[in-house]
Structures are given as C-alpha cells and as structure tokens.
C-alpha cells in the first residue's frame, strides 16, 4: 500500500464512519422533538417515554459523531497538510461557523439530555429544536466547504499560490446550494427510514406495542416526505455536476464517447483499458433529456479528457447507479405508503408493508455512502477541482498504513459496540413497555 493510498483510505474510512453519526445528529433531534411535542399536547406518557428513548440513542450516536468529527478536523492536517496550507484560509469561514453550530448543538443537547427535571417543559422542548436546527446548520456549513472543493471560487492563483482570497465568495460557491440541499434531504431520508425500519421490525414481532407503533409512524413520515425530495434535489445536483465537473458526470454515466442524444446507462462493466462499457442497459436519449431538457443535447464522453485526468470510472459509475436505485426504491415506497395512508386514513401497518419498510431501512444509509463516493472519488485526481492534485496535498509522513489500520480497528470496534448498545436499548424499551401493560 503506498502512503498516498493509505492516506486516501484513512480519510475515506473516517468520513464514511463519521457521516453515519453526523446524519443521526441531524435527523434524530427532529424525531425526539416530534414525540415530545405530542406529549406536551396530548399528555400521553407514551410519547414522553418515546422521546426519552430516542434521546438515549441520540446521546450515544452524538458522542461517537463528536469524537469521530474531532478526528476528521485533525486528519485534514495529519493527512493533507498541503491541502490545508492551500485551502485553510479560503474555506476557514464555513469551518468557523460550523464551530459555533457545534457549540450550540452540544449546549442544547446537554440541556436536553440532562435537563428533563431541571428546566420547564416548554424550554426543554425548545432546547430539542435548538439541537435540530444547529445540527442541520453544522451539516450545511461543512458541506459548503466540500462544495468548494468541487466548484472552487473566491480566489486567484498567482505563482501557484492562492491570492486575493474572498472567504465569502468561497463559501457561497456555485455548488454550495445544490449540494447542501441534497445532503440535508439525504440525512432526513437516511435517518427516517433507518428508524422506521427498526420499529417496523419490532412491530412485526410485537404487533400490539403502541410505543413502536407511534415511533414507526413518526419516523416513516419523516423518511417518506424527505424521500420525495431525494430525486428532485439529486436531479439538481446532477445538472450542476454536468456543468461544473463534466468529467465526473461522464464517469457517473460511464459515457465514453461524446454524443448528441446520449443514453441513460444503468449497470454494466466499464472497462477502462478498452474504453467501453459492456452489458449495460441503455435508455436512448434519456441522459440528454434529463440533463439539458433536450433529447438531442450534446454530452461530453470520457475520451474527451486524457487518461490521467479521469477518475476511476467503475467505482463512480457503480456508486451512482446504487444511489439512484436506492433513491428510486425509497421514493417509490414513499408514494406507495402515502397512497395507502390516504385511502385508509392511517399509517399503513399491513405485514407486507412492514416488511417492505424493514427492507428499506438500510437503503438510505447505503445511498448516502454511495453518493459521497460519487462526489469524492469522482473528483479525483483533484482535491480541489482543477487546482490542486491529491498527490500534491498528501503529508510526507511515511508508514501511513499504521494509523489507517489503527483507526479502522478502533472504528470497527466502536461500530460493533454502538450496534450492541442500541439493540439493547430497543429491546429494553419493548420490555419496559410490556411490563407496564401487564401490570
């Protein structure tokens, strides 16, 4: 393993780990607040129990998100000092704003988790909303930094060094709006369906449990509403990529030749040596139509760029296919569930539908990881699109495979522990409730 490859792997692994907990920090507070709001309105203790239950899970997820995020902030320097020396001043502004969002999030969460008996109920609820809003803001700020890597703005290059830096223009770079929208929607989809999947599973085994029924209804509503916007915001992202990062776009679609009336390519095996994609399903004209609203529009193929400017095509194409497949499945489930709910005037709990939701549980998280793979791997060989190559940004530190291995083992262990703890919490919630209804 070369040091560059170890550094990339460590960065990718750390981000892929962090993002799972970060989206929980964005989505879970919304669920807790909805449950607590219903408690305040109906005074049904069931909702209070649910809010406390979700808060406990959030506490664990948030802490792992916070420590893995800390690792990331240092890794930017430990692995990519060249990138930070170049880009630090340019994208420091969203990172500093993110710092304040972290503060507010941690403060409100402290009040929420430890303040049940200490602050007035309305204030407690307001603190929960504070966590939800500042969680979303942290996500938005850090993603504007990532958007800048995709669509750099707000500086000029003089003698290979950035000059005339405008931090505000850098933050409001051309990719910022589409990327933050899509990421935020994705976070709600992923959390909504993951939580709904867990409670659907519990409902399949304890069909009468009112706690799981309410939990399932709240989480599914969040996931389903967001899922309708997944393809919409994704489409906006795709149009944006086509304009600002055409190589990435060609790789997403595994499109080799520059064509008018380009087809939409599903699956297949991109062969980088032979420069063809074999065995794919092609829907004629659809790509041009989707991207430019004109079935005859021209789209550049990968061959328009020299080989060393192209990202790894197969990974990007497959990741994109996976994301779109998951997004379509989730949006389809949302439409189906919405239809059933509208006809029956109740959240659908037929067994086959519960099984469908269980199956959808992991798809949001899967799409999330796949989407980030598209963005990050699709940007290669650049860290900062068109300006700084990844290979020039890496640290001179040797033996990087050692920290990569250490952090991988550490995170695998943490992931296993979190799964065990959350399983125990969910199981205990059923038992607690079961005892009470028996008594």
């Amino acid at each position, binding site marked *: 393993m070369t040091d560059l490859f170890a550094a990339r792997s460590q960065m990718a692994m750390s981000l892929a780990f962090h993002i799972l907990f970060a989206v929980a920090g964005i989505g879970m507070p919304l669920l807790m607040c909805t449950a607590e709001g219903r408690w305040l309105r109906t005074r049904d203790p069931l909702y209070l129990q649910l809010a406390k239950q979700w808060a*406990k899970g959030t*506490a*664990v997820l*948030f*802490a*792992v998100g*916070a*420590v*893995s995020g*800390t*690792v990331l*902030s*240092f890794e*930017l*320097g*430990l692995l990519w*000092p*060249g990138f*930070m*020396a*170049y880009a*630090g*001043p*340019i994208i*420091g*502004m969203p*990172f*500093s*704003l*993110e*710092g*304040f969002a*972290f*503060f*507010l999030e*941690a*403060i*409100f*969460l*402290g*009040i929420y*988790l*430890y*303040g049940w008996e*200490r*602050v007035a109920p309305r204030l407690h609820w307001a603190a929960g909303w504070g966590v939800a809003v500042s969680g979303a803001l942290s996500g938005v700020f850090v993603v504007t930094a990532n958007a800048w890597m995709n669509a750099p703005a707000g500086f000029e290059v003089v003698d290979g060094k950035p000059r005339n*830096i405008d*931090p505000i223009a850098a933050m409001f770079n051309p990719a910022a709006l589409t990327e933050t929208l899509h990421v935020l929607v994705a976070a709600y989809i992923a959390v909504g369906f993951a939580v709904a999947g867990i409670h659907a599973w519990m409902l399949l085994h304890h069909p009468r449990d009112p706690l799981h029924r309410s939990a399932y209804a709240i989480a599914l509503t969040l996931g389903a509403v967001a899922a309708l916007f997944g393809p919409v915001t994704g489409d906006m992202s795709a149009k944006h990529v086509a304009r600002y990062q055409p190589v990435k776009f060609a790789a997403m679609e595994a499109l080799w030749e520059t064509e008018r009336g380009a087809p939409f390519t599903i699956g297949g095996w991109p062969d980088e040596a032979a420069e063809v994609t074999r065995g794919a399903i092609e829907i004629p004209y659809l790509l041009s139509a989707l991207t430019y609203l004109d079935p005859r529009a021209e789209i550049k193929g990968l061959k328009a760029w020299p080989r060393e400017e192209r990202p790894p095509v197969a990974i990007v194409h497959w990741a994109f296919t996976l994301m779109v497949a998951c997004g379509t499945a989730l949006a389809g489930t949302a439409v189906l569930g919405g239809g059933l709910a509208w006809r029956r005037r109740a959240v659908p709990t037929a067994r086959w539908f519960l099984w469908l939701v269980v199956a959808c549980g992991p798809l949001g998280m899967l799409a999330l990881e796949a989407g980030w793979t598209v963005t990050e791997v699709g940007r290669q060989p650049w860290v900062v699109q068109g300006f700084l190559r990844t290979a020039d940004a890496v*640290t*001179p*530190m040797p033996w990087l495979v050692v*920290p990569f291995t*250490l*952090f991988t083992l*550490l995170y695998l262990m943490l992931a296993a*522990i979190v799964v065990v*703890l959350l399983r*125990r*919490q969910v199981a*205990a919630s059923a038992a607690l409730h079961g005892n009470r209804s028996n008594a």
Partner: protein
Amino acid sequence: MGWLEPAAAGALFAALTIYALSGGADFGGGVWDLLARGPRAEAQRRTIAHAIGPIWETNHVWMIVVVVILFTGFPRAFAAVSITLHIPITLALIGIVLRGSAFVFRSFDTPEGRFRRRWSLTFAGASVMTPPFLGMVVGAVASGRIRTDPATGRVVPEFFHAWLAPFPIAVGLFTLALFAFLAAVYLTVEARERELQEDFRIRALGAAVLVGVLALVCFLLSDQGAPLIRQGLGRERWSLPFHALTGLAALGAMLSLWRRDYLWARRLAMAQAALILWGWALAQAPFLVVPDLTVTSAAAPPNVLATLLTVLGAGAVVLVPALWYLYAVFKGRGAAR
C-alpha cells in the same frame, strides 16, 4: 505587523486557555475516576460523572475552535505542526475517541449492562493517557525543534525529533498534573457531602504540589530543551512580575484549599492555569512555532484574518448567552441535586 495578526493569535490562545480550563479539567475528572479509592470510591465516581456529563461535549468544542483558528488564520503553522507531530497527535486522538465514547456508553447503557466496569476503565485510562500527548505537542512547539527549510519554506520531515525528548515529555506530565489539579479543585465545589469534599481537597492539595514540582522540572529542562522560551521566561521585562503573579495565584489556591474556601480555590486555580498558559505564549512571542514561524510569517492574508475575527465575534454574541445558560442550569446555585 498590523493588529490583525496579534489579535488572531490572541483569539487562538484565548480558545486554548478556555479549553484547558474546561475540557482539560474533564480529562482530570477521568484521572480521579481511575484513582477513586476508599469507602467513598463509588460516590467519588458519581460526583465526577455528574459534574462532567452535561458539559463535556460543549467544553470539547473549544479544541475544535483552536484547530479551526489555527488552520484558517495560520495555515503554515497548522501544516508544520500536523506533519512533524503526526504521531503524538494521532495518539491523543485515539485517547479522545476512547474517552468520549466510553463515558457516554457508561452513562447511557442499560443499567444492567455487563460492560459497565469496562467502560469505566476505558474512560479513566484514556483520560490519563491523552493529556500527556497534548502537553507534548505544546512542548514540541516551544522546543525549537520543528524546522522549516528557509529556502523552500517546506517543513523538515522529522517525525520523532521534536516531541520525543525530555522537555516535551516533562511538559506532557506537567499538563496531566495541571488538568488533574483543576479537576480536583472543581470537584471540591461540586461535591455536596463534607466527606467527599475532604477527599477531593486532599487530592487537590497533592496535585498542587505535583504541579509545582513538575513546573520546576520543566523550567530546568527548558535550558537545554527550549532555549528560546528559557530566555523569554528569564530576561524580559514583564517576566518577573508575571512569575510573581503566577506564584501568588498558586500559593493562594493552596491556601484557600487549606482553609476550605473552595470557591476562592477554584478562582485562583483557574487564574494560575491561565497565567501559566499566557506566560508560555508571551515567552515565545512573536513565534508561533519556534523558531521559524512567527505570528506574522505564518498568518493568512489580512482580509482572511478580519473575516475570521468577525465570525468569531459574531459567534460569541450567540455563544456567550447559551454557554451562560448551560452553566447556570447545571452549575449555578440552584443546581443542587
């Protein structure tokens, strides 16, 4: 040099100081968890968990703020430190991950969880292991062994030289003692029962002596280990009154502990720790990373610093009332259980 560079450096050290006083003391809490002894060991642990539970994640964010100010305002210093101190920073990060997650696992696991003991040990062990590495980073920055090639501006790729030396190691141990001292002093105020207060009082007094001894060791080693700092500490006009003030705070803190005036002990201990940090900062001024990067030479362009300071100022307007409320809810007078 304009005023922006020193102002940004001031903000950096201010954030570092608050981190040491808050997040540092949370690590110290873990030290006393590990060393909990005697008939009240469980009560000691409970007091510690109760004290840091609601606030440690907030306190921890100060570290993020330090990093962000460093890479936005002083990108070359961030790069130099990250390259040469990769190993101690990585070890500190592993400690931070283990400490934070184990603490939360212990607090939010179902009560009958079999692993409680293990979370406890991990939390406490990681709390002891991390501060020395953080201290070593500070010691290495002061030592003058992080070099950049004057011709190319590139960092000299040495990965052990700067931190694996007597002076940084002594600073690491000093940091651990200081964090433990702060925690013990805060815990005298947090503890509600008299006997618990006595437990923490004895620990605080012991830690205070250790802080003094290790401070002396660091000073003696700085002659060889950090000559520039030694000069700063010894010769400058401000240095004598500054030392006197630090010493007075230290003695005052011990005296207050002796007299069981815990609120004053807390104030003076905080002052002592802050003065130590600012003494270090002044001793190495104008250097940020001794001896090649100064506050000016490492700084980002002025408009970036101006934006950074504006964001910090505007953020503070939101942050201060929120922080105040958090501490009022959990640490204020009405916060007795």
